């Protein structure tokens, strides 16, 4: 019995830490959706090129770690601003499908461009974090997961505070609520769109570094982006608390499902369990746990 319980706790704890790292990436998606109503299908690729830049800086050009990290962060912020300016601003007011197709196209371009310009093959992205796991009773925690989980949590809380309490955050939510009225209040809407994409750049850079360390950096790093969809559908496309809770649910469900089902089916449960959950969520609560409902007064 206690062995069973210990195994469960172990799966849970790893699920929570991994889930927080999913939340971080989902946050990038949520920020853009919240402020600009654009669905970014290239979120995974954002994470991937951030990983490419950090690993490229570190392993190809031999820069010290802090330089590589800073360069990746700065480059992703510039990339976010630039992308909004060059591509997305022109799509404002067009049908949603235009933005969707544009970001899908962008995803493919980025998947080609990373290996083409920076390096091809898989490179490690070593961080100065010890390898030996902490063992606390039944818990078995790899330090990178602990660091990743805590960094993610920190940023989630910081961005959550920004949106709820700061004046810029309130302005950004106003833009999300009604662009024309926001304009009439003197809010420069385009500037806030740029800011949202830049914030996504920051989040993606951190995600790229953490996940790059965990998985190694190559084109497949973009696949973590696929986990974003169940996370945001569960939590609500436009909710930061939703991104946290959705990430935790996805992390826990995939770990627990893998722990119990994989031994019988030979693996792969991790990749589909979150999607089963997502489809169920769509049927029951299509706007997510925290998603904004359409307000109708009666």
């Amino acid at each position: 019995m206690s062995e069973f319980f210990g195994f469960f706790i172990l799966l849970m704890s790893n699920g929570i830490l991994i889930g927080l790292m999913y939340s971080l990436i989902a946050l990038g998606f949520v920020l853009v959706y919240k402020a600009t109503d654009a669905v970014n299908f290239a979120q995974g690729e954002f994470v991937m090129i951030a990983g490419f830049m950090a690993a490229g800086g570190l392993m190809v050009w031999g820069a010290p770690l802090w330089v590589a990290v800073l360069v990746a962060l700065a480059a992703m912020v510039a990339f976010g601003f630039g992308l909004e300016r060059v591509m997305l601003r022109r799509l404002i007011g067009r049908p949603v499908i235009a933005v969707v197709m544009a970001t899908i196209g962008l995803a493919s371009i980025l998947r080609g461009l990373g290996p083409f310009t920076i390096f091809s093959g898989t490179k490690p992205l070593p961080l100065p974090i010890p390898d030996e796991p902490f063992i606390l009773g039944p818990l078995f925690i790899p330090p990178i997961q602990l660091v990743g989980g805590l960094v993610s949590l920190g940023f989630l809380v910081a961005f959550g505070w920004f949106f709820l309490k700061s004046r810029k955050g309130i302005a950004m939510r106003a833009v999300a609520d009604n662009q024309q009225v926001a304009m009439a209040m003197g809010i420069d809407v385009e500037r806030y769109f740029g800011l949202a994409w830049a914030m996504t750049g920051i989040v993606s850079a951190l995600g790229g570094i953490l996940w790059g360390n965990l998985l190694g950096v190559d084109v497949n790093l973009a696949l973590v982006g696929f986990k974003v969809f169940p996370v945001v559908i569960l939590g609500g496309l436009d909710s930061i608390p939703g991104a946290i809770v959705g990430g935790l649910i996805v992390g826990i469900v995939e770990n627990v499902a893998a722990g119990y089902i994989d031994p019988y089916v030979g693996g792969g449960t991790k990749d589909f369990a979150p999607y089963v959950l997502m489809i169920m969520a769509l049927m029951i609560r299509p706007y997510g746990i925290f998603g904004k409902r359409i307000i109708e007064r009666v």
Partner: protein
Amino acid sequence: MLTLNNIEVIYDGVILVLKGVSLSVREGGITTLLGANGAGKTTTLKAVSGLLRSERGDITKGTIELAGQRVDRLPPHAMVRRGVVQVFEGRRVFEHLTTEENLVAGAHIQHDRAKVREGIARVYGYFPRLAERRRVESGYLSGGEQQMLVIGRALMSSPRVILLDEPSLGLAPMLVEEIFQIVARLNKEQRLTVLLVEQNATLALAIADHGYVMENGRIVLEGAAASLRDNADIKEFYLGLTEVGARKSYREVKHYKRRKRWLS
């Protein structure tokens, strides 16, 4: 203080909506712009506030001047900074923001936090009901409260000129009266210049000191509010009264056509 000279507005490059509108709004006064649906009243306001371009409209002729300066090419946020703010018709609050967050968003151009707090206190002074509902998501406020909120939100940018678009739309008569009285108070106490677009001519002419009547993208009648109140045409077409003061009879609809001589 605000002058429109022969403004022409075209939407989508082909649809002519304003066909040479000229009007002037006097500083510290309430000017009202009356007219039926589709006359071009809202378009006139959007031409002033710079919001036409977000709807693919364009000022193709004429000039707009604010205190002697040309302002007809400015983006909306530049107009707000110059002290001109528009309140849309239909109570467009930021639904998912609370009452107080709406007010904070309205003060976007104000960088001084103390001034923002002062502004919020002032708005609550004029609209005590908003203070009671400060933490409520504004989408759940009642219609009257939402109308108060959008006016209060516009006041947060400390405007010199407020462009009010049909504040009476869809509200109970008592609430409309309350809101109009507050607008009149704001005009007196804060020296706020008001350009009020209305379909309810009785109420608008009661608080305004000058009025214009619009039809089909043109100004067709202009005058002091008192003289407009007495104008037989206004009485008949907007106040629904015939010359003897009885209610208008629709049997005389033909008469309407004949009398509307200042049209086109």
